[in-house]
């Protein structure tokens, strides 16, 4: 079976449209910098147990594990912009991988276009582990 160029382009458009309209509304990435060496084994913690705060934690001593930086992007111009909740979730995911109890000094960028995305929002925070 061979397709004519017009049929092929129709199929391609149909496939592309279904990808755009369905599932992949956002994609995200994260990185950890200034990772502090730890003597203990890293145990991943549950996502819902990771606390997020925009300030510092002064009532409990803690150890800094590293600085987290995450980015959430929307796939196309037609999808909804990424939100702070999405950034928070990604920050928690990265912190949980490090075995952190909390992320302090959480801060966000502002939504806008970037070279790689029609809508991008980033966030940063410091992963910390409470001293036991």
């Amino acid at each position, binding site marked *: 079976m061979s397709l004519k160029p017009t049929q092929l382009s129709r199929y391609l458009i149909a496939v592309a449209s279904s990808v755009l309209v369905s599932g992949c509304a956002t994609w995200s990435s994260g990185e950890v910098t*200034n990772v502090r060496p730890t003597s203990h084994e890293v145990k991943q913690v549950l996502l819902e147990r990771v606390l997020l705060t*925009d*300030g*510092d934690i*002064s*009532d409990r001593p*803690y*150890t*800094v594990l590293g*600085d987290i*930086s995450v980015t959430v992007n929307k796939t196309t*111009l*037609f999808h909804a*912009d990424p939100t702070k909740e999405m950034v928070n979730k990604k920050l928690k995911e990265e912190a949980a991988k490090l075995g952190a109890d909390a992320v302090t*000094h959480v*801060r*966000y*960028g*502002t*939504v*806008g*276009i*970037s070279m790689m*995305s*029609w*809508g*991008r*929002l*980033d*966030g*940063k*925070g*410091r992963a*910390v582990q409470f001293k036991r």
Partner: protein
Amino acid sequence: MAKVALFSSNASAVLAAFLLVGCAHSARDLPPDMSNLAPAHRLLPSDTTSPEYSMSCPELKAEIAATRAALSRTETQLQDIQSDNQSKVIVGLIFAPFMLAMEGNETMKTQYRDLDIKRERLLRIVQSRQCLP
């Protein structure tokens, strides 16, 4: 030849959209790690010379609430402009001159950043004073 001209006009329209809609601003860098200091001493040198440093605990709390409210308002306005501009981009892909109606939001983004810096400074001062919630 006509197709090439059409492509280049579409490409120009997309480029114009990039320039006009407004770029994403990255989150500010994290402050230095002061976890080795006692909470009362976790202040930046600029904090002690700021006007907020002379405020009392109740004044600081009121200022934090006002700054957070202003941040929230600015954020909502930014989102409104952003989604409005995106609608104009979508329409502009069919009718390019529509993109000229897009609004800039750089001043508002700078305002948002300044408010965010102020909020963090207030939080540091409150924590160093150990103002009760």
